Protein backbone atom coordinates (compact mmCIF):
# COMPACT_ATOMS: atom_id res chain seq x y z
CA UNK A 1 0.00 0.00 0.00
CA UNK A 2 2.86 2.34 0.80
CA UNK A 3 3.94 1.88 -2.80
CA UNK A 4 0.62 3.37 -3.90
CA UNK A 5 0.82 6.40 -1.61
CA UNK A 6 4.38 7.01 -2.68
CA UNK A 7 3.04 7.06 -6.23
CA UNK A 8 0.31 9.53 -5.37
CA UNK A 9 2.80 11.82 -3.65
CA UNK A 10 5.13 11.51 -6.61
CA UNK A 11 2.24 12.39 -8.95
CA UNK A 12 1.44 15.52 -6.98
CA UNK A 13 5.10 16.48 -6.95
CA UNK A 14 5.44 15.97 -10.71
CA UNK A 15 2.30 18.00 -11.38
CA UNK A 16 2.96 20.79 -8.93
CA UNK A 17 6.60 21.25 -9.88
CA UNK A 18 5.54 21.34 -13.49
CA UNK A 19 7.83 18.54 -14.64
CA UNK A 20 8.19 19.36 -18.36
CA UNK A 21 8.19 15.71 -19.54
CA UNK A 22 5.01 14.88 -17.62
CA UNK A 23 3.29 17.99 -18.91
CA UNK A 24 4.33 17.22 -22.46
CA UNK A 25 2.99 13.67 -22.19
CA UNK A 26 -0.29 14.89 -20.64
CA UNK A 27 -0.87 17.57 -23.24
CA UNK A 28 -0.02 15.19 -26.08
CA UNK A 29 -2.52 12.65 -24.72
CA UNK A 30 -5.20 15.32 -24.63
CA UNK A 31 -4.29 16.56 -28.06
CA UNK A 32 -4.30 13.15 -29.75
CA UNK A 33 -7.38 11.77 -28.03
CA UNK A 34 -9.22 15.09 -28.35
CA UNK A 35 -8.56 15.26 -32.09
CA UNK A 36 -9.49 11.62 -32.56
CA UNK A 37 -12.75 12.16 -30.67
CA UNK A 38 -13.54 15.30 -32.67
CA UNK A 39 -12.94 13.47 -35.95
CA UNK A 40 -15.02 10.51 -34.80
CA UNK A 41 -17.87 12.91 -34.07
CA UNK A 42 -17.64 14.25 -37.62
CA UNK A 43 -18.02 10.72 -38.93
CA UNK A 44 -20.18 9.13 -36.25
CA UNK A 45 -22.94 11.72 -35.84
CA UNK A 46 -23.97 11.82 -39.53
CA UNK A 47 -23.54 8.07 -39.88
CA UNK A 48 -25.51 7.31 -36.72
CA UNK A 49 -28.26 9.71 -37.79
CA UNK A 50 -28.55 8.14 -41.23
CA UNK A 51 -28.65 4.64 -39.72
CA UNK A 52 -31.35 5.74 -37.29
CA UNK A 53 -33.58 7.39 -39.88
CA UNK A 54 -33.01 5.73 -43.23
CA UNK A 55 -34.58 2.46 -44.29
CA UNK A 56 -32.51 0.49 -46.79
CA UNK A 57 -31.69 -3.14 -47.48
CA UNK A 58 -28.78 -4.27 -45.33
CA UNK A 59 -29.54 -1.73 -42.62
CA UNK A 60 -29.81 -4.40 -39.93
CA UNK A 61 -26.40 -5.73 -40.94
CA UNK A 62 -24.91 -2.21 -40.87
CA UNK A 63 -26.31 -1.62 -37.38
CA UNK A 64 -24.89 -4.97 -36.19
CA UNK A 65 -21.49 -4.03 -37.61
CA UNK A 66 -21.56 -0.70 -35.80
CA UNK A 67 -22.54 -2.39 -32.56
CA UNK A 68 -19.72 -4.90 -32.98
CA UNK A 69 -17.39 -1.99 -33.75
CA UNK A 70 -18.26 -0.42 -30.40
CA UNK A 71 -16.26 -3.20 -28.78
CA UNK A 72 -13.41 -3.25 -31.28
CA UNK A 73 -10.19 -4.49 -29.56
CA UNK A 74 -7.60 -1.66 -29.79
CA UNK A 75 -4.78 -4.12 -30.59
CA UNK A 76 -6.69 -5.32 -33.63
CA UNK A 77 -7.14 -1.73 -34.77
CA UNK A 78 -3.46 -1.13 -34.06
CA UNK A 79 -2.46 -4.11 -36.16
CA UNK A 80 -4.52 -3.09 -39.17
CA UNK A 81 -3.52 0.56 -39.04
CA UNK A 82 0.10 -0.52 -38.76
CA UNK A 83 -0.24 -2.72 -41.84
CA UNK A 84 -1.97 0.12 -43.66
CA UNK A 85 0.79 2.59 -42.82
CA UNK A 86 3.72 0.14 -43.18
CA UNK A 87 6.39 1.29 -45.60
CA UNK A 88 4.96 -0.83 -48.44
CA UNK A 89 1.35 -0.67 -47.16
CA UNK A 90 -1.55 1.02 -48.95
CA UNK A 91 -0.88 4.34 -47.22
CA UNK A 92 2.82 3.74 -46.68
CA UNK A 93 3.79 6.61 -48.96
CA UNK A 94 2.40 9.03 -46.36
CA UNK A 95 5.22 7.96 -43.98
CA UNK A 96 2.84 8.38 -41.07
CA UNK A 97 3.77 5.37 -38.96
CA UNK A 98 5.20 6.23 -35.53
CA UNK A 99 3.84 9.77 -35.67
CA UNK A 100 1.09 11.35 -33.50
CA UNK A 101 -1.03 11.51 -36.67
CA UNK A 102 -1.00 7.72 -36.93
CA UNK A 103 -2.22 7.56 -33.32
CA UNK A 104 -5.05 9.99 -34.10
CA UNK A 105 -6.02 7.78 -37.04
CA UNK A 106 -6.04 4.59 -34.95
CA UNK A 107 -7.95 6.20 -32.07
CA UNK A 108 -10.46 7.63 -34.49
CA UNK A 109 -11.13 4.15 -35.83
CA UNK A 110 -11.76 3.01 -32.25
CA UNK A 111 -14.01 5.95 -31.30
CA UNK A 112 -16.05 6.31 -34.48
CA UNK A 113 -18.20 3.16 -33.98
CA UNK A 114 -18.82 4.14 -30.37
CA UNK A 115 -20.03 7.59 -31.39
CA UNK A 116 -22.03 6.14 -34.30
CA UNK A 117 -23.74 3.53 -32.13
CA UNK A 118 -24.63 5.94 -29.34
CA UNK A 119 -25.87 8.57 -31.81
CA UNK A 120 -28.03 5.91 -33.42
CA UNK A 121 -29.50 5.02 -30.04
CA UNK A 122 -30.00 8.67 -29.07
CA UNK A 123 -31.83 9.53 -32.28
CA UNK A 124 -33.90 6.35 -32.26
CA UNK A 125 -35.26 6.93 -28.78
CA UNK A 126 -37.13 9.99 -30.04
CA UNK A 127 -40.58 8.83 -31.18
CA UNK A 128 -41.26 8.67 -34.91
CA UNK A 129 -44.26 10.92 -34.29
CA UNK A 130 -41.83 13.72 -33.38
CA UNK A 131 -40.40 13.61 -36.89
CA UNK A 132 -43.89 13.77 -38.40
CA UNK A 133 -44.75 16.67 -36.12
CA UNK A 134 -41.71 18.65 -37.26
CA UNK A 135 -42.56 18.02 -40.92
CA UNK A 136 -46.18 18.93 -40.23
CA UNK A 137 -45.02 22.26 -38.82
CA UNK A 138 -43.32 23.00 -42.11
CA UNK A 139 -39.79 21.73 -41.50
CA UNK A 140 -37.73 20.76 -44.53
CA UNK A 141 -35.91 17.40 -44.28
CA UNK A 142 -32.74 19.15 -43.11
CA UNK A 143 -34.62 21.24 -40.55
CA UNK A 144 -36.33 18.09 -39.28
CA UNK A 145 -32.98 16.33 -38.78
CA UNK A 146 -31.63 19.46 -37.08
CA UNK A 147 -34.56 19.55 -34.67
CA UNK A 148 -34.10 15.84 -34.01
CA UNK A 149 -30.40 16.15 -33.17
CA UNK A 150 -31.11 19.15 -31.00
CA UNK A 151 -33.69 17.08 -29.16
CA UNK A 152 -31.19 14.23 -28.76
CA UNK A 153 -28.36 16.51 -27.62
CA UNK A 154 -28.21 15.22 -24.06
CA UNK A 155 -27.91 11.51 -24.80
CA UNK A 156 -25.46 12.44 -27.54
CA UNK A 157 -23.15 14.01 -24.97
CA UNK A 158 -22.88 10.47 -23.65
CA UNK A 159 -21.52 9.55 -27.08
CA UNK A 160 -18.82 12.20 -26.71
CA UNK A 161 -17.93 10.99 -23.23
CA UNK A 162 -17.81 7.34 -24.23
CA UNK A 163 -15.77 8.09 -27.35
CA UNK A 164 -13.22 10.16 -25.50
CA UNK A 165 -13.13 7.75 -22.57
CA UNK A 166 -12.50 4.89 -24.94
CA UNK A 167 -9.47 6.42 -26.64
CA UNK A 168 -7.76 8.33 -23.81
CA UNK A 169 -7.48 5.07 -21.85
CA UNK A 170 -6.51 2.91 -24.83
CA UNK A 171 -2.94 1.61 -24.98
CA UNK A 172 -2.60 -1.21 -27.52
CA UNK A 173 -3.15 0.73 -30.72
CA UNK A 174 -1.20 3.77 -29.53
CA UNK A 175 1.78 1.62 -28.66
CA UNK A 176 1.70 -0.19 -32.02
CA UNK A 177 1.22 2.73 -34.39
CA UNK A 178 2.92 5.39 -32.25
CA UNK A 179 5.87 3.43 -30.99
CA UNK A 180 6.06 5.19 -27.62
CA UNK A 181 8.85 7.48 -28.80
CA UNK A 182 9.95 9.83 -26.08
CA UNK A 183 9.11 13.44 -26.89
CA UNK A 184 7.12 12.47 -29.95
CA UNK A 185 4.52 9.78 -29.47
CA UNK A 186 4.71 8.97 -25.77
CA UNK A 187 1.31 9.41 -24.12
CA UNK A 188 0.03 8.73 -20.60
CA UNK A 189 -0.99 5.14 -21.25
CA UNK A 190 2.10 4.06 -23.18
CA UNK A 191 4.38 5.80 -20.68
CA UNK A 192 2.62 4.00 -17.83
CA UNK A 193 3.22 0.65 -19.54
CA UNK A 194 6.90 1.50 -20.06
CA UNK A 195 7.52 2.74 -16.52
CA UNK A 196 5.75 -0.27 -15.04
CA UNK A 197 7.84 -2.65 -17.11
CA UNK A 198 10.96 -0.85 -15.89
CA UNK A 199 9.77 -1.24 -12.29
CA UNK A 200 9.35 2.52 -11.79
CA UNK A 201 6.07 2.06 -9.98
CA UNK A 202 6.01 5.52 -8.45
CA UNK A 203 6.15 7.25 -11.83
CA UNK A 204 3.70 4.72 -13.32
CA UNK A 205 1.25 5.41 -10.51
CA UNK A 206 1.76 9.13 -10.94
CA UNK A 207 0.95 8.87 -14.64
CA UNK A 208 -2.11 6.73 -13.87
CA UNK A 209 -3.38 9.23 -11.36
CA UNK A 210 -2.97 11.99 -13.92
CA UNK A 211 -4.84 9.88 -16.47
CA UNK A 212 -7.68 9.25 -14.05
CA UNK A 213 -7.81 12.92 -13.12
CA UNK A 214 -7.91 13.94 -16.76
CA UNK A 215 -10.68 11.50 -17.61
CA UNK A 216 -12.60 12.61 -14.57
CA UNK A 217 -12.30 16.32 -15.41
CA UNK A 218 -13.44 15.90 -19.01
CA UNK A 219 -16.38 13.73 -18.03
CA UNK A 220 -17.27 15.98 -15.12
CA UNK A 221 -17.43 18.96 -17.47
CA UNK A 222 -19.61 17.09 -19.95
CA UNK A 223 -21.83 15.73 -17.20
CA UNK A 224 -22.24 19.23 -15.85
CA UNK A 225 -23.47 20.38 -19.26
CA UNK A 226 -25.79 17.39 -19.47
CA UNK A 227 -27.24 17.55 -15.99
CA UNK A 228 -27.38 21.26 -15.25
CA UNK A 229 -30.84 22.25 -14.07
CA UNK A 230 -32.96 23.86 -16.72
CA UNK A 231 -36.28 25.63 -16.53
Amino acid at each position, binding site marked *: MSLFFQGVIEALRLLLTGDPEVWRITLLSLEISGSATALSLLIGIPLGTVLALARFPGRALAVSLVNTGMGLPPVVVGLFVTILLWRNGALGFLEMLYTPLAMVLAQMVIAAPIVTGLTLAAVQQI*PAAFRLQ*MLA*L*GASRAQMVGALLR*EARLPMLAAVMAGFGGVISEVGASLMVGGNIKGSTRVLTTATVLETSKGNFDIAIALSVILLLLTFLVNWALTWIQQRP*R*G
Partner: protein
Amino acid sequence: MSAVVECARVAVAHGARTVLEVPSLAVAPGEILVVIGPNGAGKSTLLRVIGLLEAPTAGEVRFRGEPVTPRHGLAVRRRMASVFQEPLLIDASVRDNVALGLRFRSAEAAGLGPRVARWLDRFGIGALAARRARTLSGGEAQRVALARALVLEPELLLLDEPFAALDQPTREGLIEDLGAILRAEGITTVLVTHDRGEALALGDRVAVLMNGRLLQVDETAQVFRAPASEEVARFVGVETILHCPVIGRDGALSLLEAGPGTIEVAQPAEPGEWVRLCLRPEDVTLAAGGPAAAHSSARNRLPGRVVRLIPSGPHVRVIIDCGFPLAALVTHRSVEELHLAEGVSVTAQFKATAPHLLRSRKA
Protein backbone atom coordinates in the same frame (compact mmCIF):
# COMPACT_ATOMS: atom_id res chain seq x y z
CA MET B 1 -66.43 28.00 -53.56
CA SER B 2 -63.68 25.60 -54.42
CA ALA B 3 -62.39 23.17 -51.84
CA VAL B 4 -59.30 23.87 -49.74
CA VAL B 5 -58.29 20.25 -49.96
CA GLU B 6 -59.70 17.29 -51.83
CA CYS B 7 -58.99 13.59 -51.94
CA ALA B 8 -59.68 11.93 -55.27
CA ARG B 9 -59.73 8.13 -55.53
CA VAL B 10 -57.23 7.96 -52.67
CA ALA B 11 -56.20 4.50 -51.50
CA VAL B 12 -53.53 3.54 -49.00
CA ALA B 13 -52.27 0.01 -48.65
CA HIS B 14 -49.85 -1.14 -45.95
CA GLY B 15 -48.40 -4.27 -47.47
CA ALA B 16 -51.25 -6.29 -48.91
CA ARG B 17 -53.83 -4.72 -46.64
CA THR B 18 -55.86 -1.74 -47.85
CA VAL B 19 -56.21 0.56 -44.86
CA LEU B 20 -57.90 3.48 -46.57
CA GLU B 21 -60.11 3.92 -49.59
CA VAL B 22 -61.61 7.36 -50.16
CA PRO B 23 -63.14 7.88 -53.62
CA SER B 24 -63.75 11.56 -52.91
CA LEU B 25 -63.72 13.93 -49.98
CA ALA B 26 -63.57 17.72 -50.13
CA VAL B 27 -63.12 20.23 -47.34
CA ALA B 28 -64.74 23.61 -47.98
CA PRO B 29 -63.15 26.90 -46.90
CA GLY B 30 -63.91 27.83 -43.30
CA GLU B 31 -65.63 24.60 -42.37
CA ILE B 32 -64.79 22.20 -39.57
CA LEU B 33 -65.00 18.64 -40.82
CA VAL B 34 -64.88 16.01 -38.09
CA VAL B 35 -63.87 12.52 -39.16
CA ILE B 36 -65.15 10.01 -36.62
CA GLY B 37 -64.65 6.30 -36.47
CA PRO B 38 -63.41 3.55 -34.15
CA ASN B 39 -59.72 2.98 -33.46
CA GLY B 40 -57.95 1.48 -36.44
CA ALA B 41 -60.50 2.83 -38.94
CA GLY B 42 -57.80 4.68 -40.89
CA LYS B 43 -58.50 8.16 -39.50
CA SER B 44 -54.88 9.05 -38.78
CA THR B 45 -53.80 7.64 -42.13
CA LEU B 46 -56.34 9.89 -43.85
CA LEU B 47 -55.00 12.89 -41.96
CA ARG B 48 -51.38 12.04 -42.83
CA VAL B 49 -52.31 11.74 -46.49
CA ILE B 50 -54.10 15.09 -46.46
CA GLY B 51 -51.19 16.66 -44.54
CA LEU B 52 -48.70 15.39 -47.17
CA LEU B 53 -46.92 13.28 -44.57
CA GLU B 54 -47.72 10.01 -46.30
CA ALA B 55 -48.09 9.38 -50.00
CA PRO B 56 -51.24 7.51 -50.99
CA THR B 57 -50.76 4.21 -52.83
CA ALA B 58 -53.21 5.42 -55.44
CA GLY B 59 -55.17 8.56 -56.21
CA GLU B 60 -54.26 12.13 -55.48
CA VAL B 61 -54.61 14.95 -53.00
CA ARG B 62 -55.44 18.37 -54.40
CA PHE B 63 -54.72 21.53 -52.47
CA ARG B 64 -56.72 24.50 -53.78
CA GLY B 65 -57.32 22.46 -56.90
CA GLU B 66 -53.65 21.61 -57.56
CA PRO B 67 -52.47 17.99 -57.20
CA VAL B 68 -49.67 17.65 -54.62
CA THR B 69 -47.40 14.88 -53.36
CA PRO B 70 -45.24 14.66 -50.22
CA ARG B 71 -42.13 14.69 -52.37
CA HIS B 72 -42.81 18.11 -53.84
CA GLY B 73 -44.97 19.22 -50.99
CA LEU B 74 -42.82 21.45 -48.77
CA ALA B 75 -44.36 24.71 -50.02
CA VAL B 76 -47.88 23.32 -49.64
CA ARG B 77 -47.06 21.68 -46.32
CA ARG B 78 -46.11 25.14 -45.07
CA ARG B 79 -49.65 26.33 -45.75
CA MET B 80 -51.00 23.76 -43.28
CA ALA B 81 -50.37 22.85 -39.65
CA SER B 82 -51.04 19.73 -37.59
CA VAL B 83 -51.59 18.89 -33.95
CA PHE B 84 -51.41 15.29 -32.79
CA GLN B 85 -52.60 13.41 -29.74
CA GLU B 86 -49.26 13.95 -28.00
CA PRO B 87 -48.10 17.58 -27.83
CA LEU B 88 -44.59 16.58 -29.09
CA LEU B 89 -43.03 19.81 -27.87
CA ILE B 90 -39.32 20.43 -28.29
CA ASP B 91 -37.13 20.61 -25.19
CA ALA B 92 -37.12 24.41 -25.02
CA SER B 93 -39.24 27.24 -23.63
CA VAL B 94 -42.93 27.60 -24.41
CA ARG B 95 -42.15 30.73 -26.42
CA ASP B 96 -39.54 28.91 -28.54
CA ASN B 97 -41.97 26.08 -29.12
CA VAL B 98 -44.66 28.38 -30.45
CA ALA B 99 -42.09 30.15 -32.65
CA LEU B 100 -40.81 26.84 -34.08
CA GLY B 101 -42.95 26.68 -37.22
CA LEU B 102 -42.27 30.35 -37.94
CA ARG B 103 -38.51 29.68 -37.64
CA PHE B 104 -38.81 26.77 -40.10
CA ARG B 105 -40.26 29.33 -42.51
CA SER B 106 -37.30 31.59 -41.60
CA ALA B 107 -39.66 34.32 -40.49
CA GLU B 108 -37.83 37.47 -39.40
CA ALA B 109 -37.04 37.24 -35.71
CA ALA B 110 -38.20 40.84 -35.30
CA GLY B 111 -41.91 40.38 -35.95
CA LEU B 112 -42.02 37.03 -34.25
CA GLY B 113 -42.39 38.01 -30.61
CA PRO B 114 -45.76 39.80 -30.81
CA ARG B 115 -47.30 37.05 -32.98
CA VAL B 116 -46.20 34.37 -30.53
CA ALA B 117 -47.42 36.40 -27.57
CA ARG B 118 -50.80 37.02 -29.20
CA TRP B 119 -51.46 33.31 -29.71
CA LEU B 120 -50.24 32.37 -26.25
CA ASP B 121 -52.77 34.85 -24.88
CA ARG B 122 -55.58 33.51 -27.03
CA PHE B 123 -55.04 30.09 -25.53
CA GLY B 124 -54.78 31.58 -22.06
CA ILE B 125 -51.16 30.54 -21.52
CA GLY B 126 -49.43 33.93 -21.84
CA ALA B 127 -48.06 33.56 -18.33
CA LEU B 128 -46.22 30.36 -19.30
CA ALA B 129 -44.14 31.93 -22.11
CA ALA B 130 -40.78 31.52 -20.36
CA ARG B 131 -41.53 28.09 -18.87
CA ARG B 132 -39.64 25.04 -20.00
CA ALA B 133 -41.98 22.86 -22.11
CA ARG B 134 -41.10 19.75 -20.07
CA THR B 135 -42.54 21.25 -16.91
CA LEU B 136 -46.04 21.76 -18.34
CA SER B 137 -49.16 19.74 -17.49
CA GLY B 138 -50.82 17.73 -20.28
CA GLY B 139 -53.51 20.35 -20.86
CA GLU B 140 -51.02 23.23 -20.90
CA ALA B 141 -48.73 21.34 -23.28
CA GLN B 142 -51.60 20.69 -25.69
CA ARG B 143 -52.52 24.38 -25.60
CA VAL B 144 -48.92 25.16 -26.55
CA ALA B 145 -49.14 22.65 -29.41
CA LEU B 146 -52.34 24.30 -30.68
CA ALA B 147 -50.87 27.81 -30.37
CA ARG B 148 -47.76 26.56 -32.23
CA ALA B 149 -49.99 25.41 -35.11
CA LEU B 150 -52.34 28.42 -35.20
CA VAL B 151 -49.58 31.05 -35.05
CA LEU B 152 -48.75 29.86 -38.58
CA GLU B 153 -52.18 31.08 -39.72
CA PRO B 154 -52.63 27.86 -41.67
CA GLU B 155 -55.02 27.63 -44.58
CA LEU B 156 -55.79 24.15 -43.30
CA LEU B 157 -55.55 22.92 -39.72
CA LEU B 158 -55.28 19.17 -39.16
CA LEU B 159 -56.07 17.81 -35.70
CA ASP B 160 -55.44 14.15 -34.86
CA GLU B 161 -57.26 13.28 -31.62
CA PRO B 162 -55.79 16.33 -29.87
CA PHE B 163 -57.99 15.92 -26.81
CA ALA B 164 -57.73 12.16 -26.38
CA ALA B 165 -54.98 12.20 -23.77
CA LEU B 166 -56.57 14.89 -21.58
CA ASP B 167 -58.72 14.46 -18.49
CA GLN B 168 -62.40 15.34 -18.75
CA PRO B 169 -62.52 18.92 -17.33
CA THR B 170 -59.30 19.94 -19.13
CA ARG B 171 -60.63 18.51 -22.34
CA GLU B 172 -63.99 20.27 -22.15
CA GLY B 173 -62.33 23.62 -21.47
CA LEU B 174 -59.95 23.19 -24.37
CA ILE B 175 -62.67 22.06 -26.81
CA GLU B 176 -64.70 25.13 -25.94
CA ASP B 177 -61.75 27.52 -26.34
CA LEU B 178 -60.58 25.93 -29.56
CA GLY B 179 -64.10 25.94 -31.04
CA ALA B 180 -64.45 29.66 -30.31
CA ILE B 181 -61.06 30.43 -31.89
CA LEU B 182 -61.65 28.33 -35.01
CA ARG B 183 -65.04 29.99 -35.62
CA ALA B 184 -63.77 33.50 -34.93
CA GLU B 185 -60.86 33.04 -37.34
CA GLY B 186 -62.78 30.96 -39.88
CA ILE B 187 -59.99 28.39 -39.99
CA THR B 188 -60.63 25.42 -42.27
CA THR B 189 -60.13 22.36 -40.06
CA VAL B 190 -60.16 18.61 -40.28
CA LEU B 191 -60.43 16.95 -36.85
CA VAL B 192 -60.23 13.20 -36.49
CA THR B 193 -61.52 11.61 -33.31
CA HIS B 194 -63.22 8.50 -31.98
CA ASP B 195 -65.30 10.67 -29.64
CA ARG B 196 -68.72 11.58 -31.02
CA GLY B 197 -69.07 14.29 -28.35
CA GLU B 198 -66.23 16.18 -30.03
CA ALA B 199 -68.00 15.84 -33.37
CA LEU B 200 -71.18 17.33 -31.89
CA ALA B 201 -69.25 20.13 -30.18
CA LEU B 202 -67.08 21.20 -33.12
CA GLY B 203 -68.25 19.73 -36.41
CA ASP B 204 -70.01 21.59 -39.20
CA ARG B 205 -69.95 18.31 -41.07
CA VAL B 206 -69.13 14.81 -39.96
CA ALA B 207 -67.53 12.03 -41.96
CA VAL B 208 -67.89 8.53 -40.57
CA LEU B 209 -64.90 6.33 -41.36
CA MET B 210 -64.92 2.60 -40.66
CA ASN B 211 -62.52 -0.05 -41.92
CA GLY B 212 -60.91 2.51 -44.19
CA ARG B 213 -64.15 3.50 -45.91
CA LEU B 214 -66.31 6.59 -45.61
CA LEU B 215 -69.79 5.39 -44.72
CA GLN B 216 -71.44 8.79 -44.46
CA VAL B 217 -70.47 12.41 -44.94
CA ASP B 218 -73.13 14.85 -43.91
CA GLU B 219 -74.05 17.81 -41.74
CA THR B 220 -73.41 16.95 -38.13
CA ALA B 221 -77.04 16.96 -36.99
CA GLN B 222 -78.04 14.83 -39.96
CA VAL B 223 -75.46 12.14 -39.21
CA PHE B 224 -76.68 11.86 -35.63
CA ARG B 225 -80.38 12.09 -36.50
CA ALA B 226 -80.39 10.02 -39.66
CA PRO B 227 -77.42 7.67 -39.79
CA ALA B 228 -76.97 6.02 -43.18
CA SER B 229 -76.48 2.48 -41.94
CA GLU B 230 -76.72 0.30 -38.89
CA GLU B 231 -72.95 0.51 -38.31
CA VAL B 232 -73.03 4.29 -38.42
CA ALA B 233 -76.11 4.33 -36.20
CA ARG B 234 -74.37 2.27 -33.52
CA PHE B 235 -71.26 4.41 -33.68
CA VAL B 236 -73.15 7.69 -33.30
CA GLY B 237 -74.98 6.43 -30.23
CA VAL B 238 -78.17 4.81 -31.43
CA GLU B 239 -78.77 1.94 -29.01
CA THR B 240 -82.10 0.54 -30.00
CA ILE B 241 -82.05 -0.94 -33.48
CA LEU B 242 -85.09 -3.01 -34.33
CA HIS B 243 -85.73 -4.98 -37.48
CA CYS B 244 -89.49 -4.88 -38.02
CA PRO B 245 -92.20 -4.82 -40.70
CA VAL B 246 -94.29 -1.85 -41.76
CA ILE B 247 -97.95 -2.77 -41.29
CA GLY B 248 -99.71 0.38 -42.35
CA ARG B 249 -99.69 4.07 -43.22
CA ASP B 250 -101.64 6.96 -41.84
CA GLY B 251 -100.85 10.10 -43.80
CA ALA B 252 -97.25 10.98 -42.99
CA LEU B 253 -97.03 8.32 -40.32
CA SER B 254 -95.83 4.78 -40.83
CA LEU B 255 -97.09 2.09 -38.53
CA LEU B 256 -94.58 -0.55 -37.48
CA GLU B 257 -95.08 -3.85 -35.72
CA ALA B 258 -92.69 -3.98 -32.80
CA GLY B 259 -92.92 -7.00 -30.55
CA PRO B 260 -96.44 -7.19 -29.11
CA GLY B 261 -97.25 -3.56 -29.93
CA THR B 262 -96.96 -0.98 -32.65
CA ILE B 263 -94.80 2.09 -33.19
CA GLU B 264 -95.68 5.17 -35.19
CA VAL B 265 -92.89 6.87 -37.05
CA ALA B 266 -93.04 10.16 -38.94
CA GLN B 267 -91.15 8.87 -41.93
CA PRO B 268 -92.63 7.29 -45.07
CA ALA B 269 -92.32 3.55 -45.63
CA GLU B 270 -94.33 1.07 -47.63
CA PRO B 271 -96.61 -1.43 -45.88
CA GLY B 272 -95.09 -4.90 -46.15
CA GLU B 273 -91.57 -3.51 -46.20
CA TRP B 274 -89.07 -4.53 -43.50
CA VAL B 275 -87.15 -1.63 -41.99
CA ARG B 276 -84.66 -1.09 -39.21
CA LEU B 277 -85.84 1.37 -36.62
CA CYS B 278 -83.09 3.41 -34.93
CA LEU B 279 -83.87 5.08 -31.63
CA ARG B 280 -81.46 7.15 -29.52
CA PRO B 281 -81.72 6.46 -25.77
CA GLU B 282 -81.91 10.17 -24.92
CA ASP B 283 -85.10 10.48 -27.02
CA VAL B 284 -86.92 8.03 -24.76
CA THR B 285 -88.64 9.17 -21.55
CA LEU B 286 -89.97 6.85 -18.87
CA ALA B 287 -93.12 6.94 -16.79
CA ALA B 288 -93.98 4.72 -13.87
CA GLY B 289 -96.66 2.04 -14.26
CA GLY B 290 -98.70 1.05 -17.30
CA PRO B 291 -99.54 3.21 -20.34
CA ALA B 292 -103.01 4.15 -19.03
CA ALA B 293 -101.55 6.10 -16.14
CA ALA B 294 -99.09 8.05 -18.27
CA HIS B 295 -99.77 11.61 -19.30
CA SER B 296 -97.75 12.50 -22.30
CA SER B 297 -97.97 14.04 -25.74
CA ALA B 298 -95.70 11.34 -27.09
CA ARG B 299 -97.27 9.26 -29.83
CA ASN B 300 -95.59 6.06 -28.76
CA ARG B 301 -96.14 4.56 -25.35
CA LEU B 302 -94.78 1.07 -24.86
CA PRO B 303 -95.30 -0.92 -21.66
CA GLY B 304 -92.32 -2.86 -20.44
CA ARG B 305 -90.25 -4.06 -17.51
CA VAL B 306 -86.88 -2.78 -16.44
CA VAL B 307 -84.20 -5.37 -17.17
CA ARG B 308 -81.03 -3.53 -16.18
CA LEU B 309 -79.81 -0.20 -14.87
CA ILE B 310 -76.35 0.85 -16.03
CA PRO B 311 -74.87 4.01 -14.48
CA SER B 312 -73.25 6.08 -17.22
CA GLY B 313 -71.62 9.29 -15.98
CA PRO B 314 -74.28 11.83 -15.04
CA HIS B 315 -77.00 9.59 -16.50
CA VAL B 316 -78.34 6.09 -16.06
CA ARG B 317 -78.89 3.80 -19.01
CA VAL B 318 -82.10 1.82 -18.53
CA ILE B 319 -82.67 -1.33 -20.56
CA ILE B 320 -86.36 -2.16 -20.84
CA ASP B 321 -88.02 -5.30 -22.14
CA CYS B 322 -90.93 -4.13 -24.32
CA GLY B 323 -91.11 -7.43 -26.15
CA PHE B 324 -87.82 -6.26 -27.60
CA PRO B 325 -84.94 -4.59 -25.77
CA LEU B 326 -85.17 -0.80 -25.68
CA ALA B 327 -82.61 1.58 -24.15
CA ALA B 328 -83.44 4.85 -22.43
CA LEU B 329 -81.14 7.43 -20.91
CA VAL B 330 -82.45 9.10 -17.76
CA THR B 331 -81.04 11.15 -14.90
CA HIS B 332 -80.18 9.71 -11.49
CA ARG B 333 -83.02 11.81 -10.10
CA SER B 334 -85.52 10.14 -12.45
CA VAL B 335 -84.34 6.75 -11.27
CA GLU B 336 -85.18 7.77 -7.69
CA GLU B 337 -88.47 9.47 -8.51
CA LEU B 338 -89.75 6.61 -10.64
CA HIS B 339 -88.39 4.00 -8.19
CA LEU B 340 -86.68 2.29 -11.10
CA ALA B 341 -85.22 -1.12 -10.33
CA GLU B 342 -84.97 -4.43 -12.08
CA GLY B 343 -88.41 -5.92 -12.67
CA VAL B 344 -90.36 -2.66 -12.21
CA SER B 345 -93.09 -1.94 -14.78
CA VAL B 346 -92.65 1.27 -16.75
CA THR B 347 -93.93 2.93 -19.89
CA ALA B 348 -91.37 4.02 -22.46
CA GLN B 349 -92.47 7.08 -24.43
CA PHE B 350 -91.08 8.76 -27.49
CA LYS B 351 -92.33 10.99 -30.27
CA ALA B 352 -93.13 9.80 -33.74
CA THR B 353 -90.31 12.05 -34.99
CA ALA B 354 -87.71 10.47 -32.67
CA PRO B 355 -86.94 7.23 -34.53
CA HIS B 356 -85.13 7.06 -37.82
CA LEU B 357 -85.94 4.32 -40.31
CA LEU B 358 -83.25 2.53 -42.28
CA ARG B 359 -84.90 1.15 -45.39
CA SER B 360 -82.94 -1.77 -46.74
CA ARG B 361 -85.16 -2.38 -49.79
CA LYS B 362 -86.61 0.54 -51.67
CA ALA B 363 -90.23 -0.29 -52.51
